[in-house]
C-alpha cells in the first residue's frame, strides 16, 4: 500500500515536470526577446505578426483595447513613467497626436521613420509630425479610412433613382425623398444622416466645408483661430439643414455600418469600413462589389472636386522606452522599421482591407483583396485630415453643437457657426 502511494506521488511529480517542460518550450530553447504592442480592438496587427517576427527575430505580443479605453489606458500607464508597465510600441489615433506629444508621452522618432516617410501621401506624412509638417516625427501614420457614399443598387432601381443623382447636393436630396417614398413601407430607411455624436462633423460637415474651399482652423499671427464659420462653412451646414428639412431624419444612434449591411438603409455616407468584410462576413471583395456600390460624397455643383476626410492610426513609441529602457527601444525600432516595409504593409492592408497611406505598396495585390480598392486609394490620395491639436475633442464638440443647434433647434447656420467659433476661440486661447 505504502509502495503504491509512493509510486503515485512520483508519477504525479513526473507528469508535472513534463508539463512544465512542454509549457516552457523545452526549457533549453532560447527565449526570443518580447516586444509588446498596444492596439485598438479590430486593427489586427496580428495579421502580420508572424511576418514581422520572422524579419526581426522578436516575439511580438499584440495586446488589444477597446477604442474608448485605449486613450485613457495609455495616459494612465505612461503617466507612471515606468518602462515596466509601458508597451514597447503603441498605436494612437491620429487626432490624439498633439495631446500625447504636448503631454510628453511619446518619443521623437524622426531618426527612425523620416526616411521611410518619403513615399507617404502628404496629408499622412505631415500628420505624423508635431507640430504638423515641422520635420519632427513622433511615429508614422500607417493606415487610414475614407468617407464615401455607399448604396444598394437594387434599392435605388426599385425606387427609380439614378445613382448619378447622388453626386450633387440638390439631386441627392431629391433622390433621398424619392427613396423614402418608395422604401418606407418596407421598413428600409432612405439616406443615412449621422448626428450621433462628436464624430458627426467628420461625416456631415468637414468634407463639405473643404469641398467649398473652407478650413476648420487657420493660423493667424502665430496662433490658430477658427475659420469654419466662413461662407464655405455656412454653405456646408446649410446642406445639412436642407437635408433634414427635406425629410432625411438625423440619426442620433450609430451602428457603424452594421445597419447598412443589414439593408436597413438604401444610401449610406460613411467610412469605407461599412463595405468591408467586417460588416459582410463570409463574403469576398468581388461579391461585395457586385452587391453594393460606392460613390464620392456629393458636391454642391458640377466642377467641384469631391473631398473626403481621412482618419487613421499612427504607430509610435512611448517616451519612457528610449529614455529608460534603451535595449527595448532598439527592438521597438526594429519592429517599426519592419512594419513600415512596403511588402509587410501590403500584407497588412490586404489582410485587413485597410486603405494605404503611401505609394510603393503593391496595388495589384491589394486590388484583389480590397473591395473598391482603386476608388478608395484615389480618395485617400486627395483626402484631408483634422488638426490633431490637444484641444481637438473640445473643438469638434463645439462644431457638433453648432450642427445640432441648426438641425434640432432651427438656429440659422451662420449664427450657430459664429457662436461655435466664439467658443472655439476661447478654447484655443486657454
Amino acid at each position, binding site marked *: 500500500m505504502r509502495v503504491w502511494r509512493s509510486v503515485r506521488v512520483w508519477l504525479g511529480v513526473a507528469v508535472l515536470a513534463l508539463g512544465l517542460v512542454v509549457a516552457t518550450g523545452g526549457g533549453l530553447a532560447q527565449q526570443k526577446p518580447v516586444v509588446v504592442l498596444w492596439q485598438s480592438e479590430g486593427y489586427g496587427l496580428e495579421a502580420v505578426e508572424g511576418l514581422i517576427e520572422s524579419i526581426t527575430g522578436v516575439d511580438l505580443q499584440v495586446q488589444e483595447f477597446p477604442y474608448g479605453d485605449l486613450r*485613457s489606458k495609455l*495616459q494612465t500607464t505612461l*503617466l507612471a*513613467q515606468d518602462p515596466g508597465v509601458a508597451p514597447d510600441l503603441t498605436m494612437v489615433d491620429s487626432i490624439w497626436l498633439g*495631446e500625447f506629444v*504636448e*503631454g*510628453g*508621452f511619446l518619443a521623437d522618432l524622426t531618426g527612425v521613420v523620416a526616411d521611410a516617410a518619403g513615399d507617404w501621401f502628404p496629408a499622412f506624412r505631415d500628420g505624423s509630425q508635431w507640430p504638423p509638417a515641422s520635420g519632427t516625427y513622433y511615429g508614422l501614420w500607417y493606415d487610414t479610412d475614407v468617407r464615401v457614399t455607399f448604396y444598394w443598387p437594387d434599392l435605388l432601381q426599385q425606387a427609380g433613382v439614378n445613382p448619378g443623382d447622388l453626386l450633387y447636393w440638390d439631386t441627392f436630396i431629391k433622390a433621398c425623398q424619392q427613396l423614402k417614398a418608395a422604401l418606407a413601407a418596407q*421598413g428600409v*430607411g432612405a439616406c443615412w444622416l449621422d*448626428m450621433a*455624436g*462628436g464624430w458627426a462633423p467628420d461625416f456631415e460637415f468637414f468634407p463639405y466645408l473643404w469641398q467649398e474651399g473652407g478650413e476648420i482652423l487657420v493660423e493667424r499671427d502665430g496662433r490658430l483661430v477658427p475659420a469654419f464659420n466662413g461662407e464655405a462653412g455656412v454653405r456646408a451646414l446649410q446642406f445639412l439643414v436642407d437635408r433634414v428639412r427635406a425629410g432625411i*431624419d*438625423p*440619426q*442620433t*444612434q450609430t451602428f457603424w455600418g452594421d445597419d447598412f449591411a443589414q439593408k*436597413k438603409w438604401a444610401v449610406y455616407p460613411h467610412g469605407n469600413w461599412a463595405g468591408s468584410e467586417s460588416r459582410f462576413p463570409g463574403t469576398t471583395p468581388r461579391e461585395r462589389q457586385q452587391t453594393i456600390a460606392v460613390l464620392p460624397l456629393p458636391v454642391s455643383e458640377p466642377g467641384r472636386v469631391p473631398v473626403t476626410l481621412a482618419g487613421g492610426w499612427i504607430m509610435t513609441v512611448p517616451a519612457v522606452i528610449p529614455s529608460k529602457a534603451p535595449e527595448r527601444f532598439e527592438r521597438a525600432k526594429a519592429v517599426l522599421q519592419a512594419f513600415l516595409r512596403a511588402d509587410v504593409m501590403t500584407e497588412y492592408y490586404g489582410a485587413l482591407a485597410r486603405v494605404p497611406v503611401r505609394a510603393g505598396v503593391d496595388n495589384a495585390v491589394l486590388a484583389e483583396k480590397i473591395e473598391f480598392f482603386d476608388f478608395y486609394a484615389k480618395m485617400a490620395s486627395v483626402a484631408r485630415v483634422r488638426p490633431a491639436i*490637444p*484641444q481637438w*475633442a*473640445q473643438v469638434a*464638440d463645439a462644431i*457638433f*453643437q453648432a450642427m*445640432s*443647434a441648426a*438641425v*434640432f*433647434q432651427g438656429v440659422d447656420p451662420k449664427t450657430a457657426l459664429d457662436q461655435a467659433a466664439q467658443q472655439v476661440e476661447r478654447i484655443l486661447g486657454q
Partner: protein
Amino acid sequence: MAHDNPATTDAESRNARGGLPGAHAQRGVLPFPVFLRRAFGERWLPYWLVLPMLALLFSVTVFPFLWNVWVSLQDLRSTNILRGAPFVGLRNYWQLLHDPLFYHSLKVSLYFVVGSIVGQFTLGLLIALIFHRRPGAARLLRPVFIVPWILSAIIIGYSWIWMYDYNFGLINAGLRALGLPPVRWLNDVTMAIWALVIANIWRGTPFTMLFLEAALKNIPDELYEAAQVDGATGWQAFRHVTLPLLRPAVAINLILVTMWTFNLFDTILVMTQGGPANATLTTAMYMYNNAFKYGLFGYGAAITLVMLLINAALALLYLRTVGRATTT
C-alpha cells in the same frame, strides 16, 4: 461584598488570565489580552486597534477627496500632467460660475432628477402597497419586477436605444400599429430628456419598491386594527398610519435615489451622450466630458466638488424636512 456576586468573582478570575471581554468591561479594563495592553498601553490600545481601518478609510475616501480638492485648485490637463500643473487657486471655480453650459447642465439635471424621482417613487410606492396587501402576487411578481434593477446600466441603455429607435423601434412600431404618429424619442430636443427619465424610472422603480415594501412590513398590524376600530377608512389609515410611519424610510430612499440619479452617467453616455444639442447634458455628463474627454482634470475636479456640495445640500434638506414632519 463584591464576592457576593458570583459573576464578579468569575470575571475577576478570568481577568487575571486575560479572559472574556464582558468581565473586563465591568471593571473598566480593556477587553484585550494582557500582552496587547502592555505593548500599546491601556489608554492608547483602542486607537491602535482601529488605526488600520481608519488608515484604509482615509486612503480610499478622505485622501481621494482631499486630492480632488487639490486638483481642482490647479490647471491640471492631460498635456501638463507630467510637467506639473500651475496652481490657479479658485480660478476653475470662478470659470465654472461663468460657464453657461454648466448652468444648462444643472437645469437638465434638475429635470432628470425630479422626473425620475416622481416616477420612481410613485410607482415604487404603489407596487409596494399592492405587494404588501397581496403577498401571493408579490411572491410571483417580485422576481420579475426586480430584473431592471439587477441589469447593467449599459445593457439597459442599449435596450432602450433599440426600443426608442424612430424607424425600427418597438415603441414606434406600437404607435404605428395603433394608427398614431411615431415619436422622435431621442432625436428631439424636448423629448430626449423625458425619454431618458422613462428609462431611468424603469430601472430605478424596483429599488424603491423593495425599500418601501420592507418598511411596510415593519408597521405593526395592531395600528391598522386600532384605526379600523376607530372607524378609519382605507385612505385614512394610509394617510394617518402608513405614511407617517414610512417617513424615515422615505427620507433615506429619496436621499439615495436623488444622489444616484444626480450622479447617473453610464445610461446617458450610452443613450444620448448628452445630445441632441446638449438637451440631455446632465452635470455628471458635463463633468465626464471635461475631465476625461477633454483632459481638463482640474476643471473636472471643480465640477465634481460642486456636485458633492449639491448632493450634501439635498441630503440635508431631505433630512430636515422629513425630520420636521416626523416630529410634528
